[in-house]
């Protein structure tokens, strides 16, 4: 099959924009895990929802891809809604926009979400990092007060998530003219 193009599976998730830049080498990364994080990665008990989320206000989601032509949303992003927390997503452009079309609400009056519109992955990355630092330097009281006044959003997001399968099934049925 000469006409097929193959790639090295070892590189399957390496966004080309970062290859070759000084901060991409693995040798200067030390593995670590804060003891508050329980369970193992991809553990079914913590994959979709985790108790330790109760200790935090904002989930910094490092999605599967950054340099990608369109939003690619996984359990990493949905977990913030399942745990009723805010989120900043390091991912493909248009991720928040897609979430909005599905009925999820985000928090633009606290977090500058303009990063979602930035097409250039490096510029988007820098914009996300700025927001991460800003949130980490915001007092807990400010974050808690904000959350208190936006409880309805967290509850709404949770319900949207809970009903997602049913919503999607209805959409498929409608688009394919299937009676249910």
């Amino acid at each position, binding site marked *: *099959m000469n006409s*097929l*193009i193959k*790639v090295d599976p070892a590189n*399957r*998730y390496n966004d080309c924009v*970062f290859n070759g830049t000084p*901060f*991409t080498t693995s040798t200067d*990364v030390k*593995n*670590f*895990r*804060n003891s508050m*994080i329980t369970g193992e*990665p991809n553990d*079914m008990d913590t*994959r979709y929802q985790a108790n*330790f989320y*109760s*200790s*935090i*206000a*904002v*989930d*910094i989601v*490092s999605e*599967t891809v950054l*340099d*990608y*032509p*369109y939003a*690619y949303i*996984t*359990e990493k992003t*949905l977990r913030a809604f399942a745990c*009723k927390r805010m989120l*900043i997503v390091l991912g493909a452009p248009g991720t928040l926009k897609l979430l909005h079309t599905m009925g999820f609400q985000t928090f633009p009056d606290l977090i500058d979400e303009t990063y979602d519109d930035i097409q250039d992955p490096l510029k988007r*990355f820098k914009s996300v*990092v700025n927001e*991460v630092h800003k949130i980490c*330097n*915001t007092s*807990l009281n400010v974050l*808690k007060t904000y959350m*208190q006044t936006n*409880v309805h959003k*967290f509850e709404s997001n*949770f319900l949207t*998530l*809970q009903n*997602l*399968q049913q919503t*999607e*099934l209805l959409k*498929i049925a409608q688009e*394919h003219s*299937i*009676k*249910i």
Partner: protein
Amino acid sequence: MNMKTIFKIPVAVEQLLSKKYNLIDALAFTDFYNDYDQLKEKLLTLKQEKYDINDRILISHTDTDFYFKQCNVGLHLLNFFTIIDQIDIPRYVLLFYTNHFGLGTEIKKLCKEEKDQPGVIESFVYDLHYNPEGYKDVDISLDKISHQALCMMNMIRSHRYALYHQIKDISDDNLIASYTGNHQ
């Protein structure tokens, strides 16, 4: 639930589609990752001289694809359609179920014949990413919040290396973090 089954199309979706379509088979791209000989072999077993109007081969495309500047569609998708052309299976028989909210556009670039288009269902709902057994309604518990943020980085990705370097100096009092650097 094991990791292999969560790459599959949810049973509820398959049951719904089977009310209208005769699902000849269901394939997942992840079953043939980079093994195009095996994929071709499988597709050959599904090749028929004639298909009924409601016959469908359901294809799950959940994992990420490769993109490079010289090609305006994903590499796996391009290879898949190259094989489809070689085997000569009509494209309307193909029904994609995917979490790539752009796959429909990509497929239109590859399948220009309007009367022979594959179907595409773009959806979040995958057992891989969505809990089919339901989510527990947790209390918001603002009083338990002790840290501003959480950041978990598991499988190795270049953007996570970069993020690691940008957040490593943030105090543990503000950020709960992990970096496990798994390859699998």
